[in-house]
């Protein structure tokens, strides 16, 4: 297991800025969605991604469009990072027929074949074996694509984790498991349900390499994952990467986070991944205050547009319920 802290990024400044822009897009999108939910404008429930932006963005910056990801009940950040247009994402949350799943999926199942995002699987752990299967397909087809499977700390206690990682390891599949350890599965703190300190420790049980990254530092995530992706792409097999992070929001729609320790919360909230990224970009001269203001303004406009699109879009016809089951 290796621990990664970000080195000086040997990246194009444009790529750095692009990552930052994506993080802002996710943050603003989720903040906006949260308000709409509180207003009662959106049906069902939602699991928001604020605080974990650096993970989705740092990971997906390593991926090509035809690489694929599997996601979870908390998928908006992954979707945006992988390139799902926020219009169709937003429309899906509204249950509109212009949504990325035509309103059939909802928040927990967003996906988009054209950008390599499988429909999110809301069964905790459910995406892990599927990602291994995608990777197997790449291998059988002799393609150099990679599958990335996002999971939470909680998912690491599901039997699927065990079966998936073992299979990925024995067949040297091109898959990277990215565990976002945000310290909680719903209201349950990770130390109550797992004796090991690091989820990454578990990779050893499968003879799989692992690494731990600061999940609030997009550059750290990027670099850590890059190594794993390169290994996977070149036939070197899977990796388990643990990103230490924290959610800024509640678990789902209605959660006051009363089960979280206040000091812990303060410490983590002080490490805002957006601030960390902005400061780093500024330090290397890739971003000015002006740039970042512009980015925020642009993103806000995008989001406004997405809301307008979603709200103006038609609801599916009731009988559309009967479509799309069979190919």
């Amino acid at each position, binding site marked *: 297991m290796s621990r990664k802290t970000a080195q000086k990024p040997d990246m194009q400044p444009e790529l750095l800025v692009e990552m930052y822009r994506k993080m802002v897009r996710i943050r603003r999108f989720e903040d906006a969605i949260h308000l709409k939910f509180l207003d009662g404008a959106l049906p069902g429930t939602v699991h928001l991604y604020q605080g974990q932006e650096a993970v989705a963005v740092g990971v997906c910056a390593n991926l090509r469009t035809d690489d694929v990801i599997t996601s979870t009940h908390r998928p908006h950040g992954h979707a945006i990072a992988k390139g799902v247009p926020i219009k169709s994402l937003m429309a899906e949350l509204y249950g509109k027929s212009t949504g990325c799943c035509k309103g059939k*999926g909802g928040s927990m199942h967003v996906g988009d074949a054209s950008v390599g995002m499988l429909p999110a*699987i809301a069964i905790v752990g459910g995406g892990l074996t599927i990602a291994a299967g995608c990777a197997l397909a790449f291998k059988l087809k002799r393609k150099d694509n990679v599958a990335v499977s996002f999971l939470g700390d909680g998912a690491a206690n*599901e039997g699927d984790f065990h079966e998936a990682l073992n299979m990925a390891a024995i067949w040297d599949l091109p898959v990277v498991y990215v565990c976002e350890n945000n310290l909680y599965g719903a209201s349950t703190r990770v130390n109550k349900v797992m004796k090991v300190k690091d989820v990454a420790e578990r990779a050893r049980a499968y003879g799989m390499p692992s690494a731990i990254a600061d999940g609030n530092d997009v550059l750290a995530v990027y670099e850590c994952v890059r190594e794993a992706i390169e290994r996977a792409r070149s036939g070197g097999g899977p990796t388990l990467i643990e990103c230490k992070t924290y959610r800024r929001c509640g678990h789902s729609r209605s959660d006051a986070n009363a089960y979280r320790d206040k000091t812990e919360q303060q410490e983590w909230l002080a490490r805002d991944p957006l601030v960390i990224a902005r400061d780093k970009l500024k330090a290397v001269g890739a971003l000015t205050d002006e740039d970042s203001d512009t980015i925020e303004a642009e993103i806000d406009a995008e989001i406004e547009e997405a809301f307008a699109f979603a709200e103006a879009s038609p609801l*599916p016809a009731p009988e559309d319920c009967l479509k799309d089951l069979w190919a």
Partner: protein
Amino acid sequence: MPKLTYGEALRQAIKEEMERDERVFCIGEDIGIEGGFGGAFTVTLGLSEIFGHERILDTPISEAGLTGVAIGAALMGMRPIADVQYCDFLFCAMDQMINEAPKIRYMSGGAFSVPMVMRAPVGATARGAQHAQSVESYFAHCPGWKIACPSNAYDAKGLLKTAVRDDNPVLVFEHKKLYGAKGIRKVEGAIDASSEIPDEEYTIPFGQARVVREGKDVTILANLRMVYEAGFAAEALAEDGVDAEIIDPRTLNPFDYETLYRSVRKTGRLVIVHEDTLTGGWGAEVAAKVMEDVFDYLDAPVKRVCAPDTPAPFSPPMEEFYVPGKERIRQGVLSQQ
């Protein structure tokens, strides 16, 4: 008599049974964390403060694990009340649910028993296909499980208490729209399923259906949330000149055919309503049985009004189409007249 919500009645049942019998304990995800949810639908809220974390046992997200643990504890004479947050996750524990819990007693020649309860919330609530199923029928097909499906707070309390005292594995299906959660945890389209709960202790024996509404023209058999939709339909039907009798089976196994047949002999017509999907649903079994046993009393084929054979869609207009409602039930009844 205090009025309790469905969720509160379930909680009271658990509390009373845990006080009565120290072998009873709860096991599940996020059920007893301080400051937490008290289970996905708050049923166990506050109980860990009373009984401690040993008896309100929070587990990792490991449905197969917690179900297997409940089975093992039951085999050693404990009385676990296990739960999954949504019934959809029972499929993650299906080996335990089908190959172990209901078969161990039989394959041991009766030497061991598995007195466990599994609670599971069913029903569609705009959360998409993996958080929306009504899965009663999968289990109604599996020999060895008793199955309760309370439609109101009174039944919820009485049936859950009976479940805990039963020496066999018992599944209790609860409907998400009936819990009566308030404030920020309120579910859209929730139905008031609260009841006056007697001060004296009571239990409800399994296998006793409840005649919810008397009528003479048609029998509507409905469970869980569908009892309410059937009620709305019956009101509308009254204006159509059709006097509907509504029966809530309360338990699917054992099933109270006697009460149902009594009604069908009177009305000559039966409409079965469930939120579980149509094909191979428990309504098919009831329809087949009715035909086998009271064929000559039927004036029309048994009609089923159920969710269509698709997963549950997310978007509200489609979901409303999916879940049988008052109007679809009414049409079902009228089409049969």
